[in-house]
Structures are given as structure tokens and as C-alpha cells.
């Protein structure tokens, strides 16, 4: 299975994603330069974290018009899996691959910390390796992570099981205390209607080794491997 990792000017987690795929999963990965109209036969596309185009205008607003995004959108339309992490989530929202938008953290502070999220839907391409309700710890590192959408959209994604991860407190509850950025309904990650495009602010690719704090991100990559290869 081949993972294509898009490198935008300002991406800084593309290498982490590459190592996650190659070292932790033992699968093939290629970097996809944002200017090329070519996914190089990738089965899965990863939109990595970073600060594409310096977050100018809005996070993800300019990257969404990079040439490669045309192919990424086509891939998504065909049902191909797309994993948007952090800036990748912002880009996916700007591109209309996912609903809503990511706004400045309520605290106005950049937050870089391991945080707890709860798996709200373990029946997706990306989460089948987890259990429903499982509390996992993943790092976040962002200044613009406050997921926002109108109430009708929030009701729709919630009602259809498309909230995949929620920020939770120490007791595993989705409270304000457990919400690091003021995200609507404590949303940390959502999936599209087709179930093939996920966007999440936490970084599973940085949580693959207990020596580095957590290996809770591994199951996400293994889930994709199990389902896409099947």
C-alpha cells in the first residue's frame, strides 16, 4: 500500500508522516510536491501539519489552491482515503472536502501539549483499530484549532456519527475543562459523508512510540492498512 504525503511550502510534519508510514507501518510512502498534478499512484493521501503559505489570509486558504489539490479532490471524490492532520484538516475544510472551519484558539494561545481525546466512532476507515469511547492521548500543536460550523451542520455531523474524536477531560468527559481550543462540541476530528476523508487537529503521526510519550496514534494507521488493503 502506498501513502502519498503532500508537501506544501511551510509543511513541517510531512517527514513525521513519512516516518510513521515507513518505519512504524512498514509500508511505502512518497512525498507529493504541491506543484505537481500527480499523486504517483498513492492509495492514501496525507495532508500533513505545518504552516502552509505561512497561514497567510487564513490557515489553509492558499494551500487549498495548490495544483496537487485538484488531484486530491478527485481522489477523494473517487472514494480514496484522505487523512488531514492539523494544517491538513484546515486545508481540507478550506477545500470543501470537510464541512466547517478552524478558527483561532479561544485562548488566543498556541497550544502544544499531549491531550486526551475520546474515540466517538470506531466504525470508520481510520478508527476501526480503536474501541468506541476509548480515551487516547495524542499531541496537539496549533493556534487555529477551534472547529466552527453553523448549528445545522454540527447537528448533521453529530447525528450521522461523523464526529470521530472529541477532546475530553481527565474523567473522559467532553467538558470545557477538557477542551484546549474552544472547539464547538469539543470536536477534535470529523469525517466526511463518504467516510473516506478525515480531518483532525491532534497528531497521530507523532504518537507512535511510548518512548516519545504515546503510541496511541499507531492504531489509526493500522486501521487504514487493515481496511484499505482488504
Amino acid at each position, binding site marked *: 500500500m502506498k501513502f502519498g504525503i503532500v508537501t506544501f511550502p511551510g509543511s513541517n510534519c510531512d517527514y513525521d508522516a513519512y516516518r510513521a508510514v515507513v518505519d512504524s507501518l512498514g509500508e511505502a510512502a512518497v512525498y507529493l510536491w504541491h506543484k505537481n498534478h500527480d499523486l504517483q499512484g498513492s492509495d492514501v493521501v496525507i495532508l500533513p501539519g505545518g504552516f502552509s503559505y505561512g497561514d497567510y489570509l487564513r490557515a489553509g486558504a492558499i494551500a487549498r489552491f495548490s495544483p496537487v489539490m485538484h488531484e486530491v479532490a478527485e481522489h477523494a471524490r473517487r472514494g480514496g482515503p484522505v487523512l488531514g492532520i492539523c494544517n491538513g484538516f484546515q486545508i481540507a475544510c478550506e477545500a470543501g472536502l470537510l464541512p*466547517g472551519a478552524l478558527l*483561532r484558539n*479561544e*485562548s*488566543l494561545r498556541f497550544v502544544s501539549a499531549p491531550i486526551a481525546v475520546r474515540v466517538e466512532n470506531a466504525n470508520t476507515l481510520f478508527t476501526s483499530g480503536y474501541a468506541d469511547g476509548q480515551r487516547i492521548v495524542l499531541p496537539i500543536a496549533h493556534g487555529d484549532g477551534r472547529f466552527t460550523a453553523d448549528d445545522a451542520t454540527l447537528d448533521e455531523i453529530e447525528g450521522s456519527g461523523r464526529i470521530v474524536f472529541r477532546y475530553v477531560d481527565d474523567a473522559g468527559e467532553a467538558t470545557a475543562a477538557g477542551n484546549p481550543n*474552544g472547539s464547538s462540541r469539543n470536536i477534535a476530528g470529523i469525517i466526511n459523508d463518504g467516510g473516506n476523508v478525515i480531518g483532525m487537529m491532534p497528531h497521530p503521526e507523532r504518537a507512535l512510540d511510548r518512548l516519545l510519550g504515546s503510541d496511541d496514534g499507531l492504531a489509526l494507521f493500522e486501521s487504514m492498512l487493515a481496511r484499505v488493503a482488504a
Partner: protein
Amino acid sequence: MTVFRVGVHITPRRGLLDPQGKAVEGALHSLGFPGVSDVHVGRYVVIETRAADAGAAADSVRGMCERLLANPVTEDFEIETAAPT
């Protein structure tokens, strides 16, 4: 074709939490402007564009706002009258 200068104000949608506006409001209060309320911080973009007339210039900028300059989910925009440069 004439070159027009068009300004556009982009502001966070009313009703959405605007922490930046709130922070500025708090700072203004502590600076001794107690009458200040409902502060919002947006951005102002100035564009020069060639167009047949002012209406066409504004239409063109509206398209730019809808596609790139403003986020339809979270922001509103207001286009100023286009002026020939």
C-alpha cells in the same frame, strides 16, 4: 479597460466567538476607554484590478471574496466603491 482600486472589509461573522475582538476590547477598557463594547477585528484588503467600469471591478472582487478572500463559513465581507486609480 481602466485600473480600479477596490477595498474590501472582511469581518468575523456576527454571533461567532471573536476572541481577538474580545482581547482588544479588554485592553481598551484597561487603557481607560470604559465605553467600548462589541469590538471585532477583521482585515482590509486593497486590490487594483483592470475592468471595464466600476461595477465590473466590484463584481470581480466579489468573486475573489467568495472563492478566496473570505471564508463563507465564518466571515462576512463588504466591498467599497471601486475608484479609478
